């Protein structure tokens, strides 16, 4: 029986706790009385995923069985989430592949000749052929690529159509192929509560014109947090857009969830609580630590990015979007929820080597902010673990390191925009359109493997809520110049960071360490 998440209080016997440090790791002794929050153990995966998928398609939620929706001569489109999910990428076969193979089997049986498969990547980068092949599997790739299996292009004017405006005035666009289909089947993988639901279609198959309606500083600042959809202005906006899309095109949603078994056997110690470490885990920690201490960053990156997570599927639901997503969120929460009592003065977080936007690339400083202050800080329900005005301490080397292929606009954003101002709202006013419409960035997004020109801004505003909430933000072990450019403080050691934090929160502060990844959602009670 997998154990639920836990909050333990540090005493004299508590072993030091693992901190992720980019492409490295550290063991840090937490102060006496501090709390360490651990994620739940991985849930048992479904033993026969194919059977579960077949059942879900045969008995969908608030919708007709998929088979009855299929008819010869119809125009059908399958859309699927891109490689930003899950993290790290899943060991083959990916659950999206399993779902799509079942759906395609049914379509073949029904004799549907006009079938296209689209990677719903929104304004993310185009995937390489190998990356697409990894998600969809060899059989789908060889059968459909490239003429019937391709990637959404949010800047292709001809192939995006304007759908309309929501009651709140949010513009909605949609991929033309999807908009003109008799049936769209969306195959999703929900790792965290932010994913899935109406957001799948309204961001994955949309253009900048549509996405800017909710990807903006004002909406993000009004989301408490965007990891909790009922309290997220981002999701309310996506729901409005999604409802308009559902009125336009018939969509059948299939959502899957996986457990939080994020690390392969070689890195089991990262998955376990420190008190569970066996001598083998201790040896692996020591070996990994020495390797990451002495190897050059590029080598470590290659090793880490080659890791595939042995995720197991925990749920699959199909049918009407809201009914499906409610069940999906329930399954996700069952895996990642940890009840935490009250807020603290200081929260510490180790930022790992990987976030949704740096698969096979270094995590540049803006993405470090996005990961630490955007994603990890926002993994809460009700209220943040950190009290208002508290101090957030993160560990990451935060080097000046950019991937020119994937993140060209990030370089300009860092060098030019962040040198001017750090205020998300001011940046939006001054720079949003310039970056979004830059012809060179647009070209690289469309033809190369670059994120859209506006993407660094989205990564930055993802952290807007944390920046507004925290009294101070301190990076431990980071490059001083880089951290100052980002507008934060830098400390050499964790002890120094605690010392600095006391200037903001006073002597004897309460401290909580969130031991993530694996992913967890702190359900903070009053």
């Amino acid at each position: 029986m997998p154990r639920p998440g836990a909050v333990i209080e540090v005493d004299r016997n508590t072993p030091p706790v693992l901190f992720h440090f980019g492409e490295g790791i550290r063991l840090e002794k937490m102060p006496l009385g501090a709390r360490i929050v651990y994620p739940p153990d991985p849930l048992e995966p479904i033993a026969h995923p194919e059977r579960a998928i077949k059942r879900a398609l045969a008995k969908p939620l608030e919708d007709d069985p998929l088979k009855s929706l299929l008819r010869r001569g119809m125009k059908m489109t399958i859309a699927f989430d891109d490689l930003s999910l899950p993290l790290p990428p899943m060991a083959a076969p990916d659950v999206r592949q399993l779902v799509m193979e079942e759906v395609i089997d049914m379509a073949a049986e029904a004799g549907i000749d006009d079938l296209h498969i689209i990677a719903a990547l929104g304004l993310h980068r185009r995937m390489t052929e190998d990356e697409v092949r990894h998600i969809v599997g060899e059989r789908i790739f060889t059968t459909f690529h490239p003429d019937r299996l391709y990637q959404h292009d949010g800047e292709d004017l001809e192939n995006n159509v304007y759908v309309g405006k929501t009651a709140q005035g949010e513009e909605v666009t949609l991929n033309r192929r999807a908009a003109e289909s008799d049936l769209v089947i969306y195959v999703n993988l929900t790792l965290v509560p932010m994913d899935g639901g109406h957001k799948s279609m309204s961001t994955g198959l949309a253009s900048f014109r549509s996405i800017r309606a909710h990807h903006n500083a004002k909406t993000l600042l009004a989301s408490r947090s965007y990891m909790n959809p009922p309290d997220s202005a981002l999701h309310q906006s996506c729901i409005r857009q999604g409802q308009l899309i559902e009125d336009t095109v018939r969509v059948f949603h299939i959502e899957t969830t996986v457990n939080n078994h994020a690390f392969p056997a070689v890195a089991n110690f990262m998955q376990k609580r420190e008190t569970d470490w066996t001598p083998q885990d201790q040896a692996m920690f020591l070996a990994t630590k020495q390797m990451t201490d002495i190897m050059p960053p590029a080598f470590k990156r290659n090793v880490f990015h080659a890791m595939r997570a042995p995720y197991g599927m925990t749920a699959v639901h199909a049918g009407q979007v809201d009914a499906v997503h409610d069940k999906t969120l329930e399954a996700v929460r069952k895996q990642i929820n940890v009840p935490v009592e009250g807020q603290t003065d200081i929260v510490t977080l180790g930022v790992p080597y990987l976030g949704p936007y740096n698969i096979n690339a270094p995590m540049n400083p803006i993405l470090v902010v996005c990961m630490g202050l955007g994603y990890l800080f926002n993994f809460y329900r009700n209220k943040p673990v950190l009290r208002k005005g508290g101090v957030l301490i993160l560990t990451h080397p935060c080097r000046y390191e950019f991937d020119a292929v994937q993140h060209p606009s990030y370089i300009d954003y860092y060098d030019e925009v962040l040198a001017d101002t750090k205020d998300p709202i001011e940046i939006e006013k001054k720079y949003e359109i310039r970056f979004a419409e830059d012809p060179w960035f647009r070209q690289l997004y469309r033809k190369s493997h670059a994120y859209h020109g506006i993407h660094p801004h989205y990564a930055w505003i993802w952290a807007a809520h944390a920046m507004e909430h925290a009294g101070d933000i301190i990076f431990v072990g980071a490059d001083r110049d880089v951290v100052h450019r980002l507008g934060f403080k830098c400390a050499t050691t964790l002890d120094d960071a605690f010392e600095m934090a006391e200037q903001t929160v006073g002597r004897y502060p309460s401290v909580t360490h969130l031991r993530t990844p694996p992913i967890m959602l702190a359900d903070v009670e009053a």
Partner: protein
Amino acid sequence: MAWYSEGPLSRITGVVGGAIDDVLRVRRAWHWDTPRPHTWPEQGAVVPAEASDLGWARVEPVRSIRYLIQRVLLLPFTEAMVHPKVEGREWVRELERPVIFAANHSSHADTSLILHALTDSARDRTVVAAAADYWFKRPILGNIVSLFLNTFPFSRTGGAQAQLHSSSQLLKSGWNLVLFPEGSRSPDGRIQEFKPGIGFLAKETGTPVVPMHIQGAFQIMPRHQQIPLPGPIRVRIGKPMTPGPAEGSREFTARIENAVRTLSKEPRQLEFQGSWIERWQASKPREFRYEAD
């Protein structure tokens, strides 16, 4: 300061000092010399248990040591470094009798890649033929390699009958055999002509041969390179082949070579005539009776 810009002495001192600090810290924290503190919670299963192992090896306690080495070091290291893509594993999933694995040879990494590509049960019953004049010239090296990879000395310079005898003894004892029929590593990554010994051995012992092709090993660790680099690797396993009753050993060797060369080629582009439905149904995977396990 970047790691490489420091002086070598201060760097070595720093690395060694850091490693000692880490070991001491772990030793103190996890109470190597005292009982587990009673305040620590019960240990949980945490991660699902790995698949049980069916393997055994030639001699105890080497068998157990090798088991640990392969699972803790060799296989994770191979996976982390090159994340090999394996195709055709179904051909070796349920071997009814010992086989000879015949692969192209362009790198020292080939053996690890082959072992990584095999199923647990096949790997644990597999020995690797290693060139006696190369690997066993220095006994210590030969023994270490045997400990890691379950190798046995295979003469490339004559003594065919003796080789046949020792190899057939292994096959009769239930061991699979990894052979590199080219005889030595390719100097340029291309497949060289196969030597006839493999056909002879298969014919004499009536053992099936499983052709394998490793792509990319030359790029990660060619001749004269000591340390492997990360890179894409594909290991493709072919259908087991049995020598025909009227087939000579040279003909069978040629057939094996041809099979390995065929595996090296990219899959033929499917005909684009006809609908996707026909292509999809044509590529439907075969149903295996052991799939339900």
